[in-house]
């Protein structure tokens, strides 16, 4: 088992956002988390690499538990792709990708740059290597941030709504990069309402509501024969164009 998420609880003040979430992932699996806004999907993802400290529960990566002691080392195994990219503004695209290997994986400058060009090639951005993030389109920025994650050679990548900050005509290029990664065997946990990616690449859909998983299963089951009324209602809305 590559990832084990065990009974995660998180509250902000009086509001209990996550009410005990558990699931596992095998290497090479892709899972898509869906659910209404405010349900705690981002909070769950951030709890998995302790960007947000869970109040209760455990996260194991490759059998090793994430703790405050091994946090930085474990995060190198669990990459995170943000909704709003968060590329490092002062660095050229290639340096955004190279900085992880350079500062965290002990690569020398040349080796880090070589790897960075390789990863940029994987996401189809070689020709924009020298541009600054502000000079890239949203889709290009998100692909660059995926390359930055890949350069850590992580065991698992967490994606938090990677396409929802993009204009509709730009989501395709990001989804196709994600499809390609999934088919190459990358383990991916994706919060997204992109039906296309979910149908093509996901091994399992996790449907969350009110801080809990209320239904999970293969896409065929979730999309064709959802067991829960809430899942059905939600899918109805997103399949007819709305965000929720």
């Amino acid at each position, binding site marked *: 088992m590559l990832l084990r998420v065990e009974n995660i609880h998180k509250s902000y003040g009086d509001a209990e956002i996550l009410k005990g979430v558990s699931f596992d992932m095998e290497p090479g699996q892709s899972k898509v988390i869906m659910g209404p806004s405010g349900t705690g999907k981002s909070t769950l993802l951030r709890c998995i690499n302790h960007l947000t400290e869970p109040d209760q529960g455990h996260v194991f990566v490759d059998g090793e538990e994430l703790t405050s002691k091994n946090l930085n080392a474990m995060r190198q195994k669990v*990459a995170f792709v*943000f909704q709003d990219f968060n590329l490092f503004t002062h660095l050229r695209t290639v340096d955004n990708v190279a900085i*992880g290997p350079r500062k965290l994986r002990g690569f020398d400058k040349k080796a880090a740059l070589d790897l960075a060009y390789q990863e940029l090639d994987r996401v189809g951005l070689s020709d924009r290597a020298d541009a600054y*993030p*502000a000079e890239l389109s949203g889709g290009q920025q998100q692909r660059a*941030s995926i390359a*930055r994650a890949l350069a*850590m050679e992580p065991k698992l990548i967490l994606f938090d709504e990677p396409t929802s900050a993009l204009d509709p005509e730009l989501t395709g290029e990001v989804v196709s990069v994600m499809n390609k990664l999934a088919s190459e065997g990358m383990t991916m946990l994706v919060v997204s309402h992109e039906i296309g990616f979910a149908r093509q690449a996901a091994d399992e859909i996790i449907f969350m509501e009110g801080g809990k998983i209320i239904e999970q299963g293969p896409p065929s089951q979730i999309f064709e024969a959802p067991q829960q009324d809430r899942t059905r209602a939600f899918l109805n809305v997103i399949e007819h164009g709305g965000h929720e």
Partner: protein
Amino acid sequence: MSEWFDFAIEHLPYVLQGIPTTLGLWASAMVIGAALGLVLAWARIYGSRPIYLAATVYVEIFRGTPMLVQMLFIYLGLPEIGIVFDPLTAAIIAIGLNTAAYQAEYFRGAVRSVPVGQMAAARALGMGQFQGFKNIILPQALRRVIPQWSNEAILELKYTSIAYAIGVTEITARAEKIGYETFQFFEVFLLIAAIYVVMTSVVAQILLFVEKRVSVPGL
């Protein structure tokens, strides 16, 4: 006017001999202020409660008292408890400690203006908080702070003149001396004003050049 030029040319060499002192005093103080200012800014942003409080008290004290008083305290007050500095060192320390308080606030504002997502992305990659600060936040904050820092640098360049009060023979002290020797105070202070204008303009141009040089689209 031409009389003034003759006067200026005659006394310029003596005044100019004070420039290394003025600029040395200024540069040393700015370096001390930048280093200490960064530490204070770090303390006020990331420090635990006691560290935060200590840094805050420092900033309030140094911003809340006149620099001349600070300088006199260091030069004349500290010897009473056995700490003695020569005038130039006392002036460097006083101006350095003072500008540190202001620079800390400019740095703090600049660090705060970097979007929180930048640190989140650094931490998510596996950087520690200090690594993220050094590699990601600081390079952005420093670029953003250049305009304010330039103002502070120019202000302090002019403030070096108060070191004359504790006997540092920088250019203002030299001008005053010429004044008392010639009784041409009008001419000599016009001369000294011109020298300050030249120095501050050159410094402003250099810093503007640096600002353009390191600027990055989107920052």
